[in-house]
Each structure stands twice: as structure tokens, then as C-alpha cells.
């Protein structure tokens, strides 16, 4: 599956460790010349010496030989049994999940029955009936473990089967067996291989347990369980005897689990960056003391610059400055990857650990009129501000609401987190909020669960919760993208009314890719492209008369901008060619120049600044815009 060249580094150590533990027992004849079953009563319980490194056991047999040869038996039984269980279980699971119907019934019921028995009891029963021995052990362990594999395969295959690419294979007419083996199986290999390692470890333990009880490997053949059983009687005189097989067991199981852990991380495409994700990053240096002079301004983002934690990587956000005023809705517009969501997360102090703020300030005027710089607050003060001074609503309300708690409980929790209030007062407040966000029959519906509500109602609940502490700033990150158009229109209207009603002058930061929605709600618009604000100003001006070629192209590529165009007549939409650049592949000069229809040679040399218009109302980052200072192009081209 994986070539040697791209063998992941993190797997090297556990793989070597595991391989050593498997190979060493099978290399026993090379390590020791002693016979594991040769009795020499004269030397019973002899202490270790140069010839017998680990001493001798109660029958005078060489312990090193016994632990190595015993390992052969224990490992063989465990791995053979696990392999058989894995193959049978996977087949059952795949057939059950892909073909459903009767085969699903057989798979799930059969495994249910086997899972009903406590494993060790079932093993005892079978061994008692068929007599002890390695073959019986393998059979018992396979029967014991195949249901686990069937279960995992079944649920994973069910998940994969419902994905579009399997549906696409079916639509292509690919035969079923090829879909199951060629598409479904490789996609569930990750969890299966982890389960394989876990089961092998468990099988080793059970094998030892059964041998210890005298039901596994028949004496005098060595096995780790046998060794523990023998040494148990002499535990006081000779503790080494019991420690050796135990150490072998512990080491093997640790090696397998270590391997599993790393394997799971390696196979999980998302699990690469590990645990650093939860840390909230902090900027490197302290900027000037925060000041917002204008009492109308709620928050100011000034020259925000964000970089990924990896050394030498370019900025994800190069330069974002925004002023958010009370009673105003500012829309942050851009395509995916433009950095609009990151800018808002920075305001919430919720940047992912991989991203660091390396420059700029994020100032907020709190409800108490105190001005703070969000970049320099500790986690506790940020918690106090989040939900209290700044609230946020997201695209998919279902993921932000806890499905197992009633709406009432979640709202009461949100309210009492920032306001000392009795539970019944908080409930009354919650009902009042729900009424404000337009929920009919709020007294009754507050006690329903999130999944009993429609998407539009859930978004209303989220808005109600966000408003519970009367924040100064509400950040709405694509709040209507997941909703139907009629519901979207209602939510937009609701946000509009709330903004006008909110006594303390709510400032709304509305993040969206949909210019139509933005036109409906925003007072000011900031257009982002590739980590920069490229155009900013009053919504009506920007949308009617865009000065940046990117803004213009965005508007023109919307089908709703061209009500006269019709593809059946062969009309084509004016599309922007190419795709937005990744942060690491931004062109020199203007980041949009590759895709820009009006780019000049000078655009490759000069990274334009945000040039303000004469009246100061709007600004645009383009050399060819009317705002660009005369001569900037000639002057700097010569310099370059």
C-alpha cells in the first residue's frame, strides 16, 4: 500500500519495535542452544548465570529458551486467530453492509449472539468440550473475535457506501464485487488495521489467561501463560520466574498498542498536526496601548497579519483593517480561502493553534466602555468577553447546538454563564429572547430538542442565544448558507430588525460569499481576496460601482447579474479564469494579477496599497482604480 520512500517517519520506531518483538522469539534457535522442555531437576530454580541468562525454572528448564519458544506459541496463536477472525468478520461485514436486506440481518444477529457471551467464559466452554491445545485455542479465539471485525466493517462500510463516490460507481455500472473490493474495502482499511492490532494484543492476553488456567497450550510445551502458571507456586522464593513472562507480555502488548496508536494517527488524514490544535495563539510583541477615540466604534481591526506556525511560510492573512461601528452592518465578502473566517475568529480569540497573530491590533470597546486589545488577553478574560461582549453565529446551527440537551437547558446555560440569575429568571429571559427572534409558541417549544426543529428555527435559536447577553458585536459567519431561500430571507429580515431594535447599538459583522445577501443587509462591504482586503466602502457604492476588478468580476460572474443571458442561446457567463492562489503560491505584486482582465506589466512589480478615495468613504487596492495616486505606477516601475 505504501512505498518505502513515503513511509511515514512517525511509524518507524513503533514498526521496528514491533518487528523486533515478533522476530526475536522466532530466532530462538540462534539465540540459545537450550531445549525449552529439557528437564534438569538438579538445577531447579537456579539463579541466572553466564550460560543461562535468565536462570532456570521449577523443573530446571532454561527460562530464556522457554520465554522465547513460549513467545512463538503465544504469538502464532494470537496472530493466526486474529487473521482468521479478521478475514471472516470483514467478509460478513462487507456483504451485510453493501447488499443489506437478509445478509445484513444474518451479519448483525450472528455477531450479536457471539457478543452476548463473556469471552473468557465462551473460551472456557469450548476448551472444556474439545480439550486444550493450540488448534482449539486458534478456533476459539477466531470465533470470539470475528464479530468485532464484522461490526466494525459493517458500520464503516455502511458509512462509505452512502458516500457519493460509491453511488457514482454504481451509476457507472461497475459490478458490485468490484465496488466492494476496489472502492469500499480500501476506504475502511484504516479502522480495520487498527482493530487488527488491538485484537492481536487481546488475543495474546486471552491465550496466556487460558494457558494459565491449564486450558490452553498443553504442558510441557512452553507458553507465557504456562510459565506464569508454573512460576506462581514459587513466587516467594523466586520472583524472577513470574516476572519474566509477565515482562514479555507487557512488552509485546505495549509494542502492539504503540503501533496501533501511531497507525491510527497516520491513517487519519486529519490527525497530522496532533494536539497543538487547542492552544490559542498569541501575538509575538505587544503593540501600542489600545485606543478607540470615536465612541461610536465598537471594534477596530488594524493591519492584522496572521501566519501559520510553520517557520518560513507566508502569511495566511496579510493585511486586514476594519472598523466596526455601532448600528452598522459590515459585510466581509470573499471566496473560500480568502481569509474572511480567520479574520473573524481572530476577533473572537479563537484562532486555531496552527495560526499565529504576528502583527496588528484587535481592539474592542466593551459594554463597560473599557477598550481592550483582544490579542493580548489571557484565556480567562477572553472567555468573559466571548458570548458577553462579542457573540457569534455559524453556518450550520445543528453543529453548534448540542443534540442531547433541550433548547431550554442550553439557553439557560448560555445566559447564566455571564449573568448571575436564577434558573427560572433565565428561563423567562430565554423565552422572551425566542419570541424576539420570531418563534411562535416559544413557551412550549423551548423544551424541544434541536433535531425537532427546522434549520431556520435552529438558526433563530442560535441568534436568540447569541443575543442573550446583549453583545455589542455580533459576528455572523455565513448564517444563511445552509438554509433555503425563503428561510434565508426571513433570517436576513430578522437580523435587520434586531439590529435596529437592539438598544445599545449592535454592530453586525456579516461574513458571506453571497453578494445578493450582502446587498440586502450590509451598510458597508469589505471584499477579501487571498488574505487581503481589496476593496472597502459603503455597500451601495461598492456593489453598484465596483472599482476593483475582482469585485467587478465577482458580481458579473453571478448568473443573477445577467437576467438576459441564457445558456441555451449559447451565452456564456463572464467567469474569472483560474483559481485563487494558495498562500504559498501568491504571485508577486498584485495577488489578483494572474486572473485580472486589466492587469498591466506594472502589476507584477508593485503590491498595491489600499488607496482611499477623495472623500475617504471607500478604498481600493488596485493600481488601475480611480483612487490610485497618479504616478504611482510610473514611479515604482522605474524603481523596480
Amino acid at each position, binding site marked *: 500500500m505504501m512505498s518505502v520512500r513515503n513511509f511515514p517517519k512517525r511509524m518507524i520506531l513503533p514498526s521496528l519495535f514491533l518487528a523486533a518483538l515478533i522476530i526475536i522469539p522466532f530466532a530462538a534457535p540462534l539465540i540459545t542452544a537450550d531445549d525449552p522442555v529439557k528437564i534438569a531437576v538438579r538445577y531447579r530454580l537456579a539463579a541466572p548465570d553466564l550460560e543461562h541468562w535468565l536462570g532456570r525454572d521449577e523443573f530446571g528448564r532454561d527460562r530464556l529458551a522457554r520465554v522465547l519458544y513460549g513467545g512463538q506459541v503465544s504469538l502464532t496463536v494470537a496472530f493466526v486467530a486474529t487473521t482468521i477472525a479478521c478475514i471472516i468478520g470483514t467478509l460478513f461485514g462487507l456483504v451485510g453492509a453493501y447488499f443489506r436486506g437478509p445478509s445484513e440481518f444474518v451479519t448483525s444477529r450472528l455477531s450479536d449472539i457471539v457478543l452476548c457471551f463473556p469471552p473468557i467464559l465462551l473460551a472456557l466452554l469450548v476448551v472444556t468440550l474439545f480439550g486444550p491445545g493450540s488448534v482449539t485455542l486458534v478456533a476459539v479465539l477466531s470465533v470470539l473475535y470475528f464479530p468485532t471485525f464484522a461490526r466494525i466493517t459493517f458500520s464503516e462500510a455502511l458509512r462509505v457506501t452512502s458516500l457519493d463516490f460509491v453511488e457514482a460507481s454504481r451509476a457507472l455500472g461497475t459490478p458490485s464485487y468490484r465496488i466492494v473490493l476496489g472502492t469500499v474495502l480500501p476506504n475502511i482499511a484504516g479502522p480495520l488495521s487498527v482493530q487488527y492490532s488491538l485484537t492481536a494484543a487481546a488475543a495474546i492476553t486471552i491465550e496466556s489467561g487460558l494457558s494459565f488456567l491449564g486450558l490452553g497450550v498443553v504442558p510441557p510445551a512452553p507458553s507465557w501463560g504456562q510459565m506464569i502458571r508454573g512460576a506462581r507456586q514459587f513466587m516467594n522464593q523466586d520472583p524472577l520466574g513470574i516476572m519474566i513472562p509477565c515482562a514479555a507480555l507487557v512488552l509485546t502488548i505495549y509494542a502492539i498498542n504503540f503501533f496501533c496508536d501511531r497507525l491510527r494517527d497516520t491513517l487519519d488524514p486529519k490527525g497530522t498536526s496532533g494536539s497543538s490544535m487547542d492552544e490559542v495563539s498569541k501575538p509575538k510583541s505587544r503593540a501600542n496601548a489600545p485606543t478607540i477615540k470615536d465612541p461610536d466604534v465598537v471594534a477596530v481591526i488594524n493591519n492584522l497579519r496572521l501566519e501559520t506556525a510553520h517557520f518560513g511560510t507566508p502569511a495566511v492573512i496579510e493585511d486586514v483593517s476594519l472598523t466596526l461601528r455601532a448600528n452598522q452592518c459590515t459585510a466581509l465578502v470573499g471566496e473560500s480561502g480568502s481569509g474572511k473566517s480567520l479574520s473573524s475568529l481572530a476577533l473572537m480569540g479563537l484562532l486555531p493553534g496552527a495560526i499565529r497573530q504576528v502583527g496588528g491590533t484587535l481592539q474592542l470597546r466593551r459594554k463597560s466602555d473599557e477598550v481592550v486589545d483582544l490579542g493580548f488577553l489571557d484565556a480567562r478574560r477572553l472567555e468573559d468577553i466571548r458570548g458577553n461582549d462579542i457573540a457569534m453565529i455559524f453556518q450550520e446551527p445543528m453543529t453548534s447546538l448540542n443534540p442531547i440537551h433541550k433548547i431550554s437547558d442550553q439557553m439557560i446555560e448560555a445566559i447564566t454563564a455571564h449573568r448571575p440569575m436564577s434558573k427560572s429568571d433565565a428561563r423567562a429571559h430565554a423565552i422572551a429572547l425566542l419570541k424576539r427572534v420570531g418563534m411562535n409558541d416559544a413557551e412550549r417549544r423551548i423544551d424541544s430538542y434541536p433535531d425537532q426543529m427546522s434549520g431556520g428555527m435552529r438558526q433563530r435559536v442560535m441568534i436568540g442565544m447569541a443575543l442573550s447577553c446583549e453583545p455589542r458585536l455580533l459576528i455572523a459567519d455565513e448564517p444563511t448558507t445552509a438554509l433555503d431561500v425563503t428561510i434565508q430571507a426571513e433570517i436576513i*429580515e430578522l437580523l435587520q430588525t434586531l439590529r435596529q431594535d437592539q438598544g445599545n447599538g449592535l454592530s453586525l459583522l456579516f461574513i458571506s460569499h453571497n453578494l445578493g445577501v450582502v446587498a440586502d443587509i450590509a451598510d458597508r462591504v469589505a471584499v477579501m481576496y487571498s488574505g487581503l482586503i481589496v476593496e472597502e466602502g459603503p455597500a451601495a457604492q461598492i456593489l453598484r460601482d465596483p472599482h476593483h476588478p475582482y469585485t467587478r468580476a465577482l458580481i458579473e460572474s453571478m448568473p443573477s447579474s445577467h437576467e438576459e443571458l*441564457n445558456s*441555451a442561446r449559447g451565452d456564456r457567463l463572464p467567469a474569472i479564469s483560474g483559481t485563487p492562489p494558495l498562500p504559498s503560491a501568491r504571485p508577486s505584486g498584485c495577488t489578483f494579477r494572474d486572473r485580472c482582465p486589466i492587469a498591466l506589466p506594472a502589476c507584477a512589480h508593485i503590491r498595491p496599497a489600499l488607496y482611499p478615495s477623495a472623500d475617504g468613504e471607500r478604498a481600493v487596492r488596485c493600481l488601475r482604480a480611480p483612487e490610485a495616486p497618479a504616478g504611482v505606477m510610473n514611479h515604482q516601475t522605474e524603481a523596480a
Partner: protein
Amino acid sequence: MTAAPLLDVRNLKKSYSIGRSGLFSKRSLKVLHDVSFSVAPGEVLGLVGESGSGKSTIGRAILRLIESQSDVMRFDGQDLNSISPVRMRSLRKQMQIIFQDPYASLDPRKTIRAVLSEALDAHGLHKGAARVPRLIELVTLVGLDPSFLDRRPHEFSGGQRQRIGIARALAVEPSFIVCDEAVSALDVSIQAQVLNLLADLRAKTGVSLMFISHDLSVVRYISDRVMVLYLGRVMEVGPADQVHFSPKHPYTAALVSAEPSLHRENRRIRLTGEIPSPLVLPSGCIFRSRCPYAQPACAETVPPLQTVGDQHQSACLRTDIL
């Protein structure tokens, strides 16, 4: 519409059983109620509706990816209701689907070469030496570079993945493609590229499309005719421009008016109440619970589709209002 339709569907029904209400009676959830339509060769039929309208179910039912019941379901002269599984598999060469989610619709473990080869292998097309030129032709057709063939999906952007999905559908040279929200997950600038690509392909290959989307202006741009669905019933069907600019059904009018637009004045028609649960549908016209023009008569009969113009039909009793 003089030519024989490529696809003809009469009274398509689909219901899911959702547990039992009594010991013997199964409760069922009807998601499609007697939906009838046809698609002419080379025609683009747009399907619009909100979530729960059954528009995606229709696409999957035609491709026989889910079971459904219908009085007539004919594709290219063949009866899909009585077709044998073997014949159906070879018929799949002619009908394809493009999915909404460019991330879920490609197997993360397969290279683009493997994805496209699977399509060709399934029907034994372009074997041996003819394979590579065909693969190159396909990726070039959707505007990608042939050097991309040996890359895996995670190396591509959403728009590029969607192009790969389109190339996969085109690989078997189908005469009919269901585009299930094929541009909805894409950024505006990429959406325009993909829409242009689909329009070009249609002009070049004469393929028929069933274009499913919740975005009315996208559907209007790409479609010849548009069918508006609400809770599994057809509300209105007609030429794209007519349905969009002079809707005859109050639901269509409300949908069009709710659509955010840069250029139109906000003249939204307010709908009252929420979309009813499909388990307890209103009697008569299912839209009446939210309709601003509903009358007592609307509760009594299910309004039939009536002709209101050239090729234009609407299922509303109140022909006097719009």
C-alpha cells in the same frame, strides 16, 4: 418538443417506510407524489425547490440508484420499470450523474486515472492503446491539464474536483446527465466556469441535462424548461424565462422574490408559517398552509396542473392572482 422524448416519466412516486404505527401497518413517508415530466434530446430541464421538495430523489430514482414506483418510466425507448439488471447496467452508459459535493464524490484513494478508468472499464470502452488518448481527451475536455491524471483528489481544489466529476460522467458518452446541485458547493467565480463548461458540453455533444438546484438564477440561466417542486409535488413547469420572470404559481413567485439580488428592489412575498412535516401534509393544495392567497376551496381538492401558457403549466386553483 416535437421529437420523441428521451426520458418520459409518468406518476413517479416514492415513499420510505419509517417504522410501524401498529402491529401490522407500516407508516410511510411519501416524498414524491405523482411527478410527471419528460426531457427531450438535448434539452436541459431544471428542477428547483427547497430542501424536502424531492428534487434529488427524482434524479436518483431515474438512475435507479433508489427504488421507486411509477406508471411509466421510459428512457430512450426502453422501459426502466421492467428492465433486467443486466440491461440496466449497460444502459448506465447512457445516463450519468454529477454530484453536489466535490469532496465526497471522489474516492480519496484513487488517482484521477483510476477514477476515469473505472468508468471506461465498466463498459469495456477504449481498451488497451486507446485508453490513454481517451483519458487525456477527457481531462482536456473539462479544462484540466493531462499531467493531473496521476494525482489524487486531495491535491485539487473544489472546482477542479467538480471538473473531474464531470469528466467521469462524460467518460461513457452519456446522452443524459443528472446534475444534482452540481455547482452549489462552488465559489461564485468557479461556479461560473463550471456553468460555462456545462453549457459548452451541451452545445458540443447534445447531451440532455436534468439540472437540480436550489438556486433559481442558476437554474434559469442553464435550463430550457424549469420544474418547481414543493414537498414532492410539481407546482409549476414551463419555459425557464417565463417561470422565472412571470411565475404563475404563488410558491414560485415567493421563491423568486426571496432570492437575494443585487439589482432588484426588495419586494419579497412573505410566506406564513413553516414548511409542514411530510408526515402531516395539508389536505388539498399542500402549499395552502403557507400561501398568502389560500382560500377555503384550496383545502378541498388537489389542484391539477393546468396549462397557463405555451408549454407552461401551474398547479394552482387561483388562476386570477398572478
